């Protein structure tokens, strides 16, 4: 098993290298001269040229990329063009805020999605089933930034129950987390429901009933254990998606997280920050997916056997 984990971690490296290359290549298309940006519009041409030389901006692409990767592996993602501070520090100081939001979002999504999905599946075609499917459909169709705005309108502006933005205390977490979690809850509900429906049709469920097993045990143990396996993958993907999708939610709620920092950086043409953030988030996403893969192997004995 350990060999498998190490192998997968090693496989991650080329992927991450590829990601960094991809994003670095994309960002290199950014128009404008970074040195000019830093020194301002009125800076003398020689100063700009000198800074360009210093920053190594005239070096060939491969060299610049290699330098980036080398630095990145040691935790140096460059300095922000706008603030001058280390990109990594900026990310690190804000990442916990984004992480809390994403984690809460996933927790909400799972706490709602799985039970509703199970109930829908076991009471297929009933009112509860139709109702939850409609809600799930709405949840998937709603733009989450709009949901956030509507929630602010209702709960902050009109009812004044919770703050409308920023991270002041725990009550600030409620609306952003719900906004983020709604879309995922909808997806998890649908996934759980379809997985359960499929499992309930299986022969081994019939065998369990033929043994005289009580119906609730059939559903909650025999069926669920099998049905949840594909759902785990979805949960993992959702978490990763939330890390990325937090960009919009953070903007709406003025949340001091990584996503909002990235949006600001884009406006200011601060390439290192954008680059660093995307690479950082992609790395986190990959690690989460790896973790989910391992979990999958742990939970499904058929896969476990392949790697034992």
């Amino acid at each position, binding site marked *: 098993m350990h060999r498998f984990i190490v192998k997968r971690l090693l496989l991650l490296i080329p992927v991450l290298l590829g990601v960094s290359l991809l994003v670095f290549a994309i960002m290199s298309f950014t128009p404008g001269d970074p040195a000019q940006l830093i020194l301002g519009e009125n800076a003398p041409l020689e100063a700009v040229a000198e800074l360009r030389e210093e920053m190594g901006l005239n070096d060939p692409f491969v060299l610049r990329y290699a330098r980036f990767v080398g630095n990145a592996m040691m935790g140096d993602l460059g300095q922000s063009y706008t603030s001058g501070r280390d990109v990594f520090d900026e990310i690190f100081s804000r990442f916990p805020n984004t992480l809390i939001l994403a984690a809460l979002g996933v927790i909400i999504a799972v706490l709602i999605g799985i039970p509703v999905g199970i109930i829908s599946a076991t009471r297929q075609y009933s009112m509860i089933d139709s109702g939850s499917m409609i809600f799930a459909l709405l949840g998937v169709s709603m733009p989450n930034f709009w949901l956030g705005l509507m929630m602010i309108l209702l709960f902050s502006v009109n009812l004044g129950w919770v703050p409308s933005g920023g991270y002041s205390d725990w009550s600030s977490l409620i609306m952003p987390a719900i906004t983020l979690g709604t879309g995922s809850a909808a997806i998890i509900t649908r996934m759980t429901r379809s997985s359960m429906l499929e499992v309930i049709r*299986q*022969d*081994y469920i*019939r*065998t*369990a*009933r*033929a*043994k*005289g*097993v*009580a119906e609730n045990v059939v559903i909650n143990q*025999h069926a669920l*254990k*099998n049905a949840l*396996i594909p759902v785990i993958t979805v949960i993992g993907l959702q978490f990763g998606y939330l890390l990325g999708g937090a960009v919009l939610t953070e903007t709406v709620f003025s949340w001091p997280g990584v996503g909002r920092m990235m949006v600001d950086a884009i406006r200011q043409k601060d390439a290192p920050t954008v680059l660093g953030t995307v690479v950082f988030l992609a790395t986190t996403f990959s690690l989460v997916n790896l973790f989910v893969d391992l979990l999958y192997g742990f*939970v*499904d*004995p*058929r896969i476990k*056997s392949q790697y034992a």
Partner: protein
Amino acid sequence: MSSEVTTQDLLSIEGLSIVYEVDGETTYAVNDLNLSLKPGETLGLIGETGAGKTTTALGIMGLVPSPPGRIASGKVVFAGEDLLQLPEEQMRRVRGKKISMIFQDPMTSLNPVMTVGEQIAEVILIHEGVSRKESVRKAGEMLEMVGIPAARAGDYPHQFSGGMKQRVVIAIALACNPDLLIADEPTTALDVTIQAQVLDLMKALKTRYNTAMILITHDLGVVAQVCDKVAIMYAGEVVESGDIRDVYENTRHPYTKGLFDSIPDLDHTVGRLKPIKGMMPDPTDLPSGCKFHPRCPDAVASCATTMPEAVTTEAGHIARCLILKPMAEPSNRVQG
């Protein structure tokens, strides 16, 4: 045939009818079926695919999926009780303990995320009121009994071959020593050599525990090997039943005759095979009167209008056919 007092039927199905209703269409899966079985007897339930054999078995077990399926009428009397009238709570106590069922495809009958030991122990735990430790021990014993080392109790189903999986299924079914085992085509999905092994195992266990068995199959050879009695199903009803030798030697129903005639004979060279002409009727649109009449070489006019009643000989050989009526004798169950 002994000269003892006739023993009470273990299972007696009377007039069972089961329908499936989907999208306004009704499928008549089981129609006025009658069947009986004594303790320790092995009955072969033969029929082509679609004759209603599995539905009958599910009906006995109370496992007919209830939204589309419905028991329209009839009685399933087991050890004196009509199972169809039992509340679900009590029926659950019958399943796995008094009546067990094993299904056709061993590859999908076992839960992939539970060890085989757990799956066997579960049925023991539910019904026998013993401790968990005891149920695990007994599960190991059952594995040994079906020819699998008890040490493999911690393995998962995918680690076993098809034949071994079926053995596990048999172990689960017999763990609580049921009075009746219903086996729905237990060897159809297996290789011929494995088939023989599994059948031998079933025979041995059946003798050891004196379990009555209903063996559902479309394979006449299997029936010949294992069964005492045989019942032939067509379009949801039993058209002929009786002692296996009697039915083979004194075949009475035209369908059964057609079935036996269609088997190629190893001893004689044959130019053409003799299938029964026509096809199985559409269960949503069954023929009137005797359901076999459109394909029957001996049909007469009244076959299309009248449902044949069962005609019984003194040996307990039953057949449902109108043209047998003149030869009918009042059934008397005295053995001579």
